[in-house]
């Protein structure tokens, strides 16, 4: 990212050597000035599309055509939710087959637009799985995730979709909790559908 002198006379410069890779800057910035090459909006959207069976060719915004509903998408933090998912898999724990896990650097990287777009594209439900308060790998990414969830959920409520959106904190070493949480959520989504 480059800096540009704004009206305030100050210059924002990013030292990429210091970047920890959480991607929270991308989430916070309303105008896409910040980006992170490993997890661009386009890359995450491509994963959402693939998981929902859409052609992955990226359409620019506004050109989305929704298809039939189906899988529940799990946006899992690579340090907690995703580890727990792997552990659940290794232990042979069962959770519904219609779930798809999308790994993110940090749940604070997400944005209401990405989560809502998953629903727009036909996801039956969207769940965010991040680190518990106080143990975020990036210190405060989960606070950002909570704020993003709060906005998404408020928007979801207005559209009658809030039962299809959830946020849960999952310890990295708890495969059982992962499986239980996902089972409960998917059951709830099916019940409310």
């Amino acid at each position, binding site marked *: 990212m480059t800096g540009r002198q704004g009206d305030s006379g100050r210059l924002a410069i990013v030292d990429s050597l210091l970047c920890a890779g959480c991607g929270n800057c991308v989430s916070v910035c309303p105008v896409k000035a910040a980006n992170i090459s490993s997890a661009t909006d386009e890359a995450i959207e491509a994963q959402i599309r693939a998981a929902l069976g859409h052609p992955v060719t990226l359409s620019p915004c506004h*050109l989305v055509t929704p298809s039939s509903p189906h899988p529940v998408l799990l946006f899992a933090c690579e340090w907690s939710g995703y580890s727990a998912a792997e552990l659940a898999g290794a232990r042979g724990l069962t959770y519904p087959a219609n779930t798809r896990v999308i790994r993110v650097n940090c749940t604070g990287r997400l944005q209401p637009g990405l989560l*809502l777009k998953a629903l727009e594209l036909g996801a039956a439900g969207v769940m965010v799985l991040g680190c518990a308060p106080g143990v975020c790998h990036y210190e405060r990414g989960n606070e950002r995730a909570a704020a993003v969830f709060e906005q998404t959920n408020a928007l979801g409520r207005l559209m009658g979709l809030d039962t299809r959106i959830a946020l849960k904190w999952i310890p990295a070493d708890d495969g059982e909790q992962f499986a239980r949480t996902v089972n409960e959520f998917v059951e709830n989504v099916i019940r409310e559908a």
Partner: protein
Amino acid sequence: MVFLDTTLEQTIHTSGILRCLECGKCTAICPIARYDGGFSPRVTVGRALTQRDNELLDDDRLWTCLNCFQCSQVCPANIDYSALTLAVRTQARKRGQAALCTHGEAIHVWMRMMTQPELKQDRLGWLSPISDFRFSIFDSSPATRHSAHDTLFFAGCAPYYDALFAPLGIAGASVAQASLRILNALGIEPQILAGERCCGHDLLWEGDVDRFLQLARLNAEMIRASGVKRIISACPECVRALKVDYPAFGVRLGVEVVHLSELLADSNSKLKISNRKSKMVTYHDPCRLGRHLGIYAAPRKALEQLGYQVVEMRHNRRNATCCGTNGWTHCGAANKAIQVQRLREAKATGADVLVTACLKCQIHFKCALMDQQMADEIGIEMVDWSELVVGWV
């Protein structure tokens, strides 16, 4: 403005660009051109005239125009530049081009989702905190149609903006509440649509005519079924869309569409002139209410009758500068500079309060003040027009 002809070829005739004198007044007054040297309405007109279509359609900058109508207002040849913009955008979308969305596309996603007929919204939460409102809710079932209530209050998407912009301290719910309270005080008990959709304003101006029409038809169907004879809204974009754009695109509502301030101006007698308030306020004309709909005096009059001293910014009424951003796309350095400049003008009036009359203007201004240095220098209290006027009730 002729909208139905959205092919470029036709728009070249209907927008009047054949008359262009190449005087450059448009570019001289354009707020975007002031901060982005690469943007020029005069050059765009020239390109459209020389039929260099692809160059025109593939230019990123075609998405940055605010449709603020500053240029068309000063054009000596009376050219409708925004008709050209709309036509160019509509064609460019067909080539797979699109505007760059702000806010991670969240706003566009909800606008698009509202085109789904089966969507069941729960958008009336703003009504519940106050028990003494008088209104009826029309949910499209004949039983909820209230024939004595012949006015519809079109609330607009304030609840959605509250959900996304709570961190900026945006309280659209209180704008909607204030508007309803004003209506009640004027003796009007309106119907409110439980399933109201986005009016489609932003999608239209981005050239997404198909989705605009889907929204327009969904709203029109509910409005017709409600049996109302008049629609009142406090949102300048909703009024513009319902009053001008729906009929221009063949969606006829057959009812009057009025901005709340016009209604108040007509009910003069009910609004008593009160004592001078200690507060000095300045009023920012939203482009859609001002240049698009020609409503300048009514909102000011209500403030003055309430006893506020209205002091004007350097650019006001017909010459008011845009809040700098439009349609939740392409917000960049030029847009921020426009906002900062506008806030400087507001600050320079010495007013205690900047009165906005469009929730979006307030959101963009507050966003510009997120920069602490700007907040220290040009921070000013912002209140929506209806929230001030409701003080009279």
